[in-house]
């Protein structure tokens, strides 16, 4: 990539940092140049977030309809997967899958709920009274 071709597009890097790119200068030697972002990959990141939001909305609907427990919603909301949630709570993934069933979720002790609440950065009360904005 030539120095003059380094993209300087608007991206989520704004107010955070500019990234270092390795580029060829006029003498054909390598040097670094700072970039504010590249639209091509900004679009990829944007798509990824749209997908996250779509999945979160879906989980919210399922939860409100009583098909899954709030754990399934917060899992999506906090971008976690089973291994991440298992790491933060100390539960096995098969236990988490069970806890995603509303009937079993109802019977969970506050002690267990607290583990989920801490992992999701919410209170037990918020977790029990599912009402996300």
């Amino acid at each position, binding site marked *: *990539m030539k120095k003059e071709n380094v993209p300087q597009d608007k991206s*989520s*890097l704004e*107010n*955070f*940092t*500019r*990234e*270092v*790119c*390795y*580029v*060829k200068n006029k003498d054909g*030697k*390598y040097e*670094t140049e*700072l970039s504010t972002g*590249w639209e*091509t*990959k900004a*679009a*990829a*990141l944007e*798509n*990824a*977030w749209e*997908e996250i939001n779509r999945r979160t909305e879906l989980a919210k609907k399922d939860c409100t309809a009583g098909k899954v427990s709030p754990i399934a919603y917060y899992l999506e909301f906090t*971008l*976690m*997967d089973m*291994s*991440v949630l*298992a*790491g*933060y709570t100390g539960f096995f993934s098969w236990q988490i899958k069970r806890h995603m069933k509303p009937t079993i979720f109802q019977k969970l002790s506050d002690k267990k709920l607290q583990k989920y609440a801490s992992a999701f950065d919410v209170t037990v009360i918020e977790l029990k009274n599912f009402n996300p904005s």
Partner: protein
Amino acid sequence: MSEYKHIQTAHCENGVTVSLLKQQGLDFMTEPLAFGLGSGLFYIHIPFLKVNGGPAISFRSMPGSIFNRTCKTLNIPVERKKFRSELEAEKFLDKQLDAGKTVGCQVGVFHLPYFPKEYRFHFNAHNLIVFGREGDNFLVSDPVMETTTSITRAELSKVRFSKGALAPKGHIYFPTDKPIVTEETLRNGIVRGINRNVRDMLYIPASVTGVKGIKHTAKKVRKWRDQVGERQGGLFLGQIVRMQEEIGTGGGGFRFIYAAFLEEAAEILGNDELIGISEQFTKAGDLWRDSALQMAGIYKGRITSQKDFDHAADIMVEIANAEKKALQDLGKLKLK
């Protein structure tokens, strides 16, 4: 505490390596050199692992390997530790900082307070430097940032003990001695780094690594439209582009950094043939950028026919062939 000088680099682990070694008096260290000495260039389409249901791809060698290999090849003694207990990890860090040491830490970015929300995924192989503390405030030099910053004890502990794949477990590492690196050690290190990279990219007997790995992914790209549809296929392509271009790669999936390394190596080894091979990697990097543009056309919904997926795959095959040629030429040189 000796004066700490922040250095911004493209990639976090390169940056931590460069800064820690410069701190030890190795003034010649640069990001491309650390990357090349550590044989950082790689490609792997990780089998059986899915990220958001899509491909898990890496354009660089295993996290930690760049720092390890670079230090080892230059005979620099290193201390590294992981912890079960957060308290122990905090105590150990305090002790090193109070003794005036500068240390590298592996962290997860999801809870990293100065990262913007858009970049906060559960990615656990980020690296930063802690170079001092003022009470419970820790001075942090993050190589992808333009300036230094500070975070609290609780924040630091949280990111050092993030959970999930590649969980850092408080991983801390730093050189323990100021070695004298002779010109000869450096030259030998460069040759070794290059040869190891040629081996890793060409001769690992697996279809998912190195240049064969690139063709492996290309084959999958051709099938995605039929298998998962235009939308999902587009998301998968976006995932490749993010692995390839997101903060840390210097552009073109690290290929430009590697080309810069070969340019430096040509000068240090006094071998002009390396310049020609550096050019080949620059071309490979440019092709990766072209491939990203083609993929973007698909995930933006502008071009979504099977022909367009095929074209993206064709570019990847072209890249694989270009890199194969470059690496074979590199392997044929009698470097010393």
